[in-house]
């Protein structure tokens, strides 16, 4: 059971079907729009653990994410572009982060900061979401426990790179599936596969 890109987009039905074939005008427009978007990302910090401390350090004067147009930390998802999940996500917060994500207007991106947000980390327990990508789509994963501010800045720069590669000719980039409460974003077997124990936690069995 390998992971194929088609599994992530809901059955491989979505393809790039450009109404407009890329030409000089659209690529120049893409460049302008992406340049503007990438350099004024407004983050919505969702800090739940020690990663949030590193995020605060990143936001403070020494590392200073305002250099990347991110100094406006909005605690309202309606005025944010980047959901920055810094820290572990318990199952009890899963509906909360999904609602925050749904409240954010397009265009929006998600950075998963740290081992716990990305994979569950050391918390391979009954209470912890094993990676926030089982709940919301994630654009950039920043590894580390917690990542240093440089690592987060590198992740932000990777997000810049991703944004600058987007094109308006691709209508699937901004489409959003409507999910009812309790709906899974990706197939159940993928969640089980992504949540498989790894590292030291393979020595724990489900029955012990």
């Amino acid at each position, binding site marked *: 059971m390998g992971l194929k890109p088609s599994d992530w987009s809901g059955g491989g039905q979505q393809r790039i079907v450009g109404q407009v074939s890329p030409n000089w005008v659209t690529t120049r427009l893409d460049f302008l729009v992406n340049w503007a978007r990438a350099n004024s990302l407004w983050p919505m910090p969702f800090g739940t653990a020690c990663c949030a401390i590193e995020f605060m350090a990143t936001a403070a004067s020494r590392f200073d994410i305002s250099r990347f147009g991110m100094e406006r930390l909005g605690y309202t998802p309606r005025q944010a572009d980047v959901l920055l999940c810094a820290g572990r996500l318990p199952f*009890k917060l899963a509906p909360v982060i*999904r609602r925050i994500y749904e409240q954010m207007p397009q265009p929006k991106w998600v950075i998963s900061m740290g081992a716990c947000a990305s994979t569950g980390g050391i918390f391979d*327990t*009954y209470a912890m*979401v094993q990676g926030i990508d089982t*709940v919301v789509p994630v654009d950039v994963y920043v590894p580390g426990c917690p990542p240093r501010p440089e690592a987060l800045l590198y992740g932000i720069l990777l997000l810049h790179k991703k944004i600058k590669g987007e094109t308006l000719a691709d209508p699937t980039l901004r489409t959003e599936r409507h999910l009812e409460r*309790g709906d899974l974003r990706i197939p*159940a077997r993928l*969640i089980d596969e*992504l949540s498989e124990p790894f590292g030291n936690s393979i020595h724990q069995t489900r029955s012990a």
Partner: protein
Amino acid sequence: MFGSSIERALVSCGQTIVYVDRHHAREVLRWLRDTPDEDYDYLVDLTAVEYRDPERPLEVVYQLRSLKRGAELRVKAELDKDQPLDVDSVVSLWRAADWLEREVYDMFGISFREHPDLRRLLMWETYAEGFPLRKDFPLRGRFSRAEQVRQALAASPESNYSMEELSVAQAQYDLPPDMRERLERGERGRVPEPKVQDDG
């Protein structure tokens, strides 16, 4: 005074531990709180223990302190596993016991008789996998990860609050009607009537 309700007492690491019969725990604790020479006015902690030995009973632990006398006392009530796991609530003695007893109920499944609002504290209301701190509970839970995610996403974040908590925040009148309806359906108690301003 309490006769056979006091089962045994011992001193461990300088701490006096008294084992009491679970049916009379509240009377003993009330006496400890109200008797002038005892005067244990502060409930430091209320928790529970399950030991690895399956023969040993569960224990509900009351850690008491007398702020006036500077004395500490640990009271334990043993609950046999083959009997219903319940003890009397001590919320009427110490208000601090409210959330502590809810936590013990959430994690161990011990129910507290006459608790005013006994529902899960840490896990969400519809959590169906059992009681996580019991020894027979697997570390990763009983359901598959996908099922856990599905059930967690189906839970309502608003229902973690009681009507009382919402009324403390003066938020119950601002709730949208559907949320209000959900909370009432979830047996969260009655929405208090709006106070009528009496300007004389």
